[in-house]
């Protein structure tokens, strides 16, 4: 199976635009590096040797393809047929490794000698550190101090894998600030360093590159649904922070007009409280971290802090292609609260014997609502983007508070 297909519209590679969204809003110092990255990526797409190496690593090292399975007991409880795309079974426990293996291969081609990354939940940091250890490149990861605290196991993993973790204390000390610091490092060390962006966010060509590397999720699961269900799903559901797992699975179904694409953002304490991480549902158009998209901001254009129980969704922006999918109506976006996510988490544990990441739990939390709309004959594919070991402490703490 080819893991890297050319998905983008021909114009995207030139303009980096998804309708009015995307683009390159970065310091002049970084513009040549983005051009260099675009050229290198284009070369790799046309190079069978690169494709073969990527295919081989994803299969033999990362454990692809991942299964799609029918979640029978969850289906019975929720009231529709629910299929799980098991990205939690990827090496490192989440979909993030699909992208990092691709980008680190790309970085080696570009003769970069140092890798930096930002991370929220730590999954992308772990996946980057993993790919760097595999390919012998030094790795430094920027992580908000707040996330270092609530995702301690992933910090330990990154360090064991040989990465240096920088705890970022500026701003809200979460993912947004980690990305600010990574950009500051990159602008300083741009000649030697590749910035391995972890989501479908950032300046062009990152949203395109990350989407293409993650599109393997959608390609595999489309084939698997046809084999196992004998049909395409009625809807595909994924959680959306920056939006990489969602873009990856959506990519496989975007041309199938009858398949509904649904992204679930983090509503935190509730969208009405203002304490949430749902820019598509409740934000406005703005420019953050190099791209135009939906962001959480004040009336005078200051970015506001996001709030979510899930470190990986705790981000006030979202990938520009999601913004375009929202505006065009091809995908719809909704949001569920921290509380609902915890319910979704517990339900999957109890019914299927799978402990999902808190990020992923948001997708599950939306299923009961969707079941009421679609009815028992619907087939719904959910991207099970990551496993939840890293979240045990948070979950147990929160459940104890609930009493």
């Amino acid at each position, binding site marked *: 199976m080819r893991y890297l297909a050319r998905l983008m519209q021909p114009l995207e590679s030139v303009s980096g635009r998804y309708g009015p969204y995307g683009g390159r809003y970065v310091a*002049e110092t970084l513009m*040549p590096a983005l051009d260099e990255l675009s050229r290198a990526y284009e070369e790799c797409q046309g190079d069978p040797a690169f494709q073969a190496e990527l295919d081989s690593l994803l299969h033999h090292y990362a454990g692809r393809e991942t299964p799609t399975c029918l979640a029978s007991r969850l289906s019975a409880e929720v009231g529709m047929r629910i299929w799980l795309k098991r990205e939690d079974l990827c090496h490192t426990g989440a979909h993030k490794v699909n992208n990092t293996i691709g980008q680190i291969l790309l970085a080696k081609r570009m003769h970069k000698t140092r890798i930096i990354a930002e991370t929220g939940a730590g999954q992308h940091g772990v996946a980057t550190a993993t790919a760097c250890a595999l390919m012998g490149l030094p790795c430094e990861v920027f992580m908000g101090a707040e996330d270092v605290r609530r995702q301690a196991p992933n910090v330990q993993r990154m360090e064991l894998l040989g990465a240096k973790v920088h705890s970022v204390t500026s701003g809200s000390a979460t993912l947004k600030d980690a990305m*600010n610091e990574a950009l500051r490092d990159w*602008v300083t060390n741009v000649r030697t360093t590749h910035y391995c962006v972890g989501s479908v966010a950032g300046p062009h060509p990152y949203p395109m590159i990350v989407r293409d590397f993650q599109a393997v999720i959608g390609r595999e699961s489309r084939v698997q649904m046809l084999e196992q269900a004998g049909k395409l799903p009625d809807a595909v559901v994924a959680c959306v922070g920056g939006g990489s797992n969602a873009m990856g699975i959506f990519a496989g179904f975007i041309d199938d007009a009858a398949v509904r694409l649904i992204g679930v953002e983090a509503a935190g304490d509730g969208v009405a409280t203002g304490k949430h991480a749902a820019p598509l549902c409740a934000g406005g158009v703005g420019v*953050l971290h190099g791209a135009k998209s939906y962001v959480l901001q004040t009336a005078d254009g200051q970015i506001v802090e996001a709030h979510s129980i899930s470190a990986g969704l705790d981000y006030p922006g979202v990938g520009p292609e999601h913004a375009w999918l929202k505006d065009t109506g091809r995908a719809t976006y909704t949001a569920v609260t921290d509380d609902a996510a915890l319910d979704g988490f517990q339900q999957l544990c109890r019914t299927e014997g799978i402990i999902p990441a808190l990020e992923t739990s948001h997708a599950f939390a939306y299923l009961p609502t969707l079941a009421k709309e679609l009815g028992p004959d619907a087939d719904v594919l959910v991207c099970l983007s990551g496993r939840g070991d890293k979240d045990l402490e948070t979950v147990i703490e929160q459940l104890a508070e609930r009493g």
Partner: protein
Amino acid sequence: MGRIADAFENARSENRAALVIYLCAGDPDLNATVELVVAAAESGADIVELGVPFSDPTADGPAIQRAAQRSLRGGTTLAKVLETVRVIRSRTHIPILLFGYYNPILSYGEQKLVDDAAESGADGFLVVNLPPEESAGLRGPAVERGLDFVPLVAPTSDPHRIQQAGEMATSFIYYVSMTGVTGSTATDLASASKRAAALQRELGRPLAIGFGVKTKADVATVSPHADGVVVGSAVVQAIEVAASTDEAVLAVRALVSELAGGLARQ
């Protein structure tokens, strides 16, 4: 010709570089900003870059990040910065370049900002994360209204991008001395200055060197070669450590006078 181009012309006629001073609007508060701009103007600054604070200043080092945070905590908005420019204009004619990030501008509305900035007496825009490719929406209206749009050239810019900046510049080009964020320590200011001088000749536009210029000695290194020199973080730090607005004004007077002393060409 606008006030900014005049300032470069004037400095050239005095056989020196133009001194550009960065101040973060609203740090410590907007009333203080008025006094600080006036103090800089009276102490030898030729141009003021007035920073519009942004929550996520990815091109700035810790000193300017902290200044922006203080300013935002005090309630500074782009609209209030423009009101402040209007007040400054009743006190001094020093050219004022609004300096910042794109999102507050996008949020305000580009055309509306150009109109309001022109009316307030501002002279132009420098937007750190708005490269030429994305700049038409602001640059077009600004140029039409007679306001300057200042492009940047970085050490990584290739000849095509340098040429593009030259074509877009209406008064001067901001030359980033090194790969890094504001307030970093410059590694080789002398080489950067000579490179800037070569680009000035090639492009036929003044270049001002910024990033890593902190002391009178740094200014003296740049001044023989480049048409302008920008000092930001050092000024912001002097304001940060001052105990009161009066003290900050005195500190800025002293620092700017000292920096201006480095402008003389041998």
